[in-house]
């Protein structure tokens, strides 16, 4: 059997990781504002069908991605209204949002089973794409891959270096203090939830338009939950999201490639390795307890009401 081509492996792990990268990045912003939204899976799959449907109808993948982001944000607003105005429990509401998203997307998607999506073209880098090694890895992807990295950079910059980021983090650390300073806690949190929903929607659309690419019910198959885990794995730091997503996506692609290449490693071991490595890294990181604990937003999951 031929050995695995590492260049193609790396190129395909980037594609495999992009959906969870996007969804995890959105959830990070949401959690930084103190909101725990467990509905990522539901928003992803809703984005997957909306993006797919729009792309099929208009034959424009770009419009598809745009509508997927809007759809994810719209769906997240159900969660937003329930948790921010009606003060419902965030964990329960998030789980309900996942169930709702799965069912609703199945309903919306009934006419789209078995159809083909218009291809999302690679960004034309011209001669750069033909470079050995670097070409396929860096310059052969579609626009969403680059957009996802750009989004990570933007989120990192905004959170770390701007006033808006400071306010967002303040709301997540102590909503009472932020409120006392005159910031509109509920409004800021709603924006963060919408941003999280939009990115989850984008991630879902990346699955249905690029990675699979087709529409099937339940096609996210747990990607949203992995995205949630990656936020914790990254200890709420944007660049570590990239690391976590590529590590997870990379190992799951690698194990399939190892099997296909006939490398004699027990399959059970390979199949569980992404999860095992995630756990190992989590354990290693949380050795330094105070640091990890300090990094979780202090008001995460707590409801805010101006009167209390």
């Amino acid at each position, binding site marked *: 059997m031929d050995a*695995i081509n590492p260049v193609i492996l790396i190129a395909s792990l980037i594609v495999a990781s992009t959906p969870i990268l996007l969804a995890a990045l959105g959830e990070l912003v949401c959690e930084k504002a103190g909101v725990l939204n467990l509905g990522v899976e539901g928003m992803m799959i809703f984005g997957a069908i909306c993006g797919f449907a729009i792309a099929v109808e208009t034959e424009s993948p770009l419009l598809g991605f745009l509508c997927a982001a809007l759809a994810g944000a719209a769906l997240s607003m159900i969660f937003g209204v329930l948790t921010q105005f009606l003060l419902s429990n965030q964990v329960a509401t998030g789980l309900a949002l996942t169930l709702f998203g799965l069912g609703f997307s199945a309903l919306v998607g009934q006419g789209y089973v078995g159809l*083909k999506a218009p291809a999302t073209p690679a960004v034309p880098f011209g001669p750069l794409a033909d470079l050995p090694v670097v070409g396929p890895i860096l310059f052969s992807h579609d626009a969403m891959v680059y957009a996802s990295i750009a989004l990570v950079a933007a989120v990192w910059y905004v959170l770390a270096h701007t006033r808006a980021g400071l306010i967002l983090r303040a709301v997540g650390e102590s909503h009472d203090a932020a409120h006392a300073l005159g910031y509109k806690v509920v409004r800021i949190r709603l924006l963060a939830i919408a941003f999280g929903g939009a990115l989850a929607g984008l991630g879902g659309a990346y699955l249905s338009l690029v990675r*699979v690419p*087709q529409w099937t019910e339940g096609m996210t*198959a*747990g*990607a949203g939950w992995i995205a949630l885990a990656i936020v914790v794995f990254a200890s709420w730091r944007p660049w570590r999201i990239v690391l976590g997503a590529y590590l997870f996506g990379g190992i799951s692609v690698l194990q*399939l490639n190892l099997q*296909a290449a006939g490398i004699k490693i027990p399959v059970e071991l390979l199949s569980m390795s992404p999860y095992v490595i995630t756990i190992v890294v989590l354990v290693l990181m949380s050795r330094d307890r105070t640091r990890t604990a300090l990094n979780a937003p202090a008001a995460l999951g707590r409801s805010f009401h101006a009167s209390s």
Partner: protein
Amino acid sequence: MNFRLALKGAALAVATGLAGIASAQDEPLKVGFIYCCPIGDLGWSYQHDVGRQAIEEEYGDRVETIFQESVSEGADAERVMTQMALSGADIIFATSFGFMDATNNVAARFPDVQFEHATGYKREHPNVTTYNSRFYEGRAVVGHIAGKMTETNKIGYIASYPIPEVIMGINSFFLHAQKVNPDVELTVVWVYSWFDPAKEADAARAMIEQGVDVITQHTDSTAPQAAAEEAIAAGTRVFTFGQASDMLPYAPAPRIASIIDNWNPYYIKRVGQLLDGTYESMESWGGMPEGEVVIGEITDEVPADIKAEAEAMIAAITAGEYHPFTGPIMKQDGSVFLAEGEVATDEQLLTMNFYIEGIDGDIPN
């Protein structure tokens, strides 16, 4: 109240009870289905739902069907079946291997409801039936086509879980590919899921990357066909087969044929038996002769002579003249599985836990 009156009352109660049963029989027979995956998977669950609709079409007002899709295995399955039994279902079809224990647990509590479990082997109560289909017959035909169609001599199999059902399929597929092409090599990738489109697509891509040019699958989504289509667009020659249902949107290529699980004859027969009172619990394992395993249209990508050979094999299996597991067949370790002319027993097939000679690699435990 004296004794006589009490007796009278009891008689009356029995009479009304009987009347109740009689009137219940005028009501439509309630048939429940639970599916492991979404009906829209275009694979396994979709095909069971086609069977459900066939029952409605066949018996009209005499039956009422209910179903629940995407039921997870374990406690959820038990809840759904209990709910169905409580809401008056007369027979419940549990259509996934993973529902096996749940089916038997619920059957114990509702002795008057008939339970039918697809692809299982546990019948712990008199009201439990198991039924399955001889998919390996279809895999033999597909394997023959794969062996003839490959140019790289590498064929691939996306496998779900290492259970006898799946191993039987792998062996049947490879055996018949090897018969017509002794140089053929088999690549098996285990994805540990019945339905995970992203993973199935990645598995197909990994195989294509390794030079595999014919892929079949024992998973439920059409994602491998989509991945193969993408590879074709990039200039690679690769073929796939529809699994469980026809997957025709991907024809004429990459999908060049398919194994269709046609449950209609079985479901119509069993519900009919329940309606006319001849129903009994049993163990059913039908195949091509019963019309339960069907090969979908073989497209023109397959040359006419290969198509004719495949059709001859279908005819021979349907007529009962050929059994896909006919000796001599050796196990992977070189020991004899079936001697010359010997035909595998159902017991041997249902407990199959080894690869046949020529397959590289180990079966996960």
